[in-house]
């Protein structure tokens, strides 16, 4: 993963309002043994270890026997031919149609 595509750093360079935003992580939980990890949602964390802590607190609330995976949203490469988005088609490999995943010059209005 290159630093420039991380949402955190992209946001940091954008506007003062979003400076210091923790990057977005996707959370996968194995509900019980024998099952696959399943995507349950996302959260913010400053780094991988904090993301694991947060995932445990937020998505498995208390004490359950589970296994967690976390991964930075910006590290996921996506392919979904069915979801057509011309805006980002040339680099359409991100999980979200998510403007902050892309460096946009500060002087572009309404972004």
């Amino acid at each position, binding site marked *: 993963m290159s630093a*420039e*595509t991380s*949402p*955190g750093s992209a*946001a940091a360079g954008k506007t003062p*309002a*979003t400076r*210091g*935003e*923790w990057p*977005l992580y996707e959370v996968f939980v194995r509900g019980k043994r024998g099952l696959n990890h399943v995507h349950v*949602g*996302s*959260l*913010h*964390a*400053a*780094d*991988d*270890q*904090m993301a*694991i802590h947060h*995932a*445990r607190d*937020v998505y*498995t*609330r208390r*004490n*359950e*026997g*589970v*296994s*967690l*995976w976390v991964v930075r949203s910006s590290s996921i490469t*996506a392919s*979904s031919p069915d*979801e*057509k*988005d*011309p*805006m*980002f*088609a*040339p*680099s*359409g490999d*991100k*999980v*979200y*149609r*998510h*403007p*902050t995943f*892309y*460096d*946009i010059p500060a002087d572009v209005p309404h972004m």
Partner: protein
Amino acid sequence: MTTQINENQFDATELEAQFAATIKAKDRIEPRDWMPEKYRKTLVRQVAQHAHSEIIGMQPEGNWISRAPSLRRKAILLAKVQDEAGHGLYLYSAAETLGATRNELTEKLIAGKQKYSSIFNYPTLAYTDVGTIGWLVDGAAICNQVPLCRTSFGPYGRAMIRVCKEESFHQRQGYELLMTMMRGTEEQRASVQESVNRFWWPSLMMFGPPDDDSPNTEQSMEWGIKTHTNDELRQKFVDMSVPQAEALGVTFPDDGLKWNEERGHYDFSTPDWDEFWAVVKGNGPCNEQRVAHRKRAWDEGAWVREAALAFAENTAADAADTDTAADTDTANTADTTNTTAEETAK
């Protein structure tokens, strides 16, 4: 990395047709799909308001955590308010898939540029209100939210499924608290009735203005963002609540409330829409207090959020400097954290 916007590759009408077909088939729109800008904006506004409501909604009940009259009730209340933080988090995540970050939305909330449910601008004046909020406010929220599990935007619907499951526990705990209090002393019963009197009308207003005064409803229904009108949901809530009040042994403060055999519904009086608009426009009993509380927490947390980012950057820089085996180190760390999560979870 540069964004290439190359709309000519795609036929705009074809995209719109595809979007319309997805909506018509009651299929879900997913984040990478093309969508009309107005659809995206409407959704961001609705999801953000919803997320803000969960977060601001922590305050009125949070007001009684320190004073909950039994340890069991304290645990229930703390867990409930914690759930609301979780709900806000799920919903902000849904908004992020539309390109609105949590920071941006929070900044808008504390600048007064985005709204939240007006019910939370009413004060909680007794611990009993925890029960009433659970029963009536969460009950009204469920009426509003259950249909949203089927909303047209995938991430919003998925967040709502999680939210609704937890909300139904909340409503039950509220009703159960009131039932328990009604079995208690005379003073407790009086407190329940007093609390219900204060929250009944604001609960009815939670469904929003009457349909003929709700300009966005039509478009939102067409897009499958909204699936019932305000008045439909309000009627449904009244019909649900009356027998519950009877079972509880309390009355609602409305002389016009009575069963209409012909309509098959309860008739009820018109809520005080002047009060509603006054609260929406910022003159509710607690508007300023709620936003100020959120702003204080956000502002006072800024240095912590900064510090964590700086730590992450410092650590990453140290790791990069140390040696060429950085990749292995990272892999090991990931293993360790994963193990930690599994072990502490047991």
